[in-house]
């Protein structure tokens, strides 16, 4: 009966001697620090990407990717606002759609402004100024398409945010395992 042979330890390429598999403490600590720093950078980039589409990728040094994302998601979001007007972003009346829309942070600003105009208009009930709402609410197809564009832009930005969380920053090298376990 054959006895199972114990696995042979890996050898270092230069000396041919068995490699020390115990990580050297300073190098392992340095690798941990580098990983933590990269994770912090990715988290900051994700927040930037939420604040303005593509900004996260730009912050990590992925300039072309960031510019393409900014142009595309920005165009879809602004296109939606252009089609339906600011009334398509409405946290109070369309909370489900707003979940998608809020993935582009400026949607919060538009929603606050829309709400401000609506409240101002409501306060003017009974006066002649009640005629002017400050904006024309969208109905039918413009509302539908405007809402769809802004919500889809938000969901695409969510994809970009998730991508930026796991994307390696340009110019930051991964810690080499052979250095850590030298």
């Amino acid at each position, binding site marked *: 009966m054959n006895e199972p042979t114990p696995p042979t330890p890996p050898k270092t390429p230069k000396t041919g001697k068995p490699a020390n598999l115990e990580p050297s403490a300073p190098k392992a600590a340095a690798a941990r620090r580098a990983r933590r720093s990269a994770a912090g950078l990715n988290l900051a980039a994700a927040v930037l990407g939420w604040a303005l589409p593509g900004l996260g990728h730009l912050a990590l040094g992925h300039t072309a990717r960031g510019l393409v994302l900014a142009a595309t998601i920005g165009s879809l979001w602004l296109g939606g606002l*252009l089609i339906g007007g600011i009334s398509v972003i409405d946290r109070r009346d369309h909370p489900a759609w707003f979940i998608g829309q809020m993935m582009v942070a400026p949607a919060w600003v538009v929603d606050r402004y829309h709400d401000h105009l609506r409240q101002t208009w409501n306060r003017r009930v009974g006066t*002649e100024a009640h*005629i002017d709402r400050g904006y024309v609410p969208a109905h039918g197809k413009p509302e539908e398409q405007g809402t769809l564009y802004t919500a*889809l832009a938000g969901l695409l930005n969510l994809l970009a945010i998730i991508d930026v969380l796991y994307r390696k920053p340009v110019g930051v090298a991964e810690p080499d395992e052979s250095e850590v376990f030298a």
Partner: protein
Amino acid sequence: MTPISAASVTLAWRPFFEPLPIDAGWFWLCVPLVVGVAVVYKTIKLPHLRDLPLEAIKLAGQVLLFMALAALLLTLLTWLF
């Protein structure tokens, strides 16, 4: 007409404050939407952006083609039954 109500009546379209009159031909708006989705998807997926224009056009074309086929099929079904 009082000055206040006269100020509230605007004839020109005000971007972002008034919706676009798109009731006719609204379905053409799906084209930029699909192109946008294809560009963002491929921007995230591709390792090198030099292939982006071709890949995005291919993906957008495929999506639009299948949307058109689905629309055709549904039209045929409603026409037959």
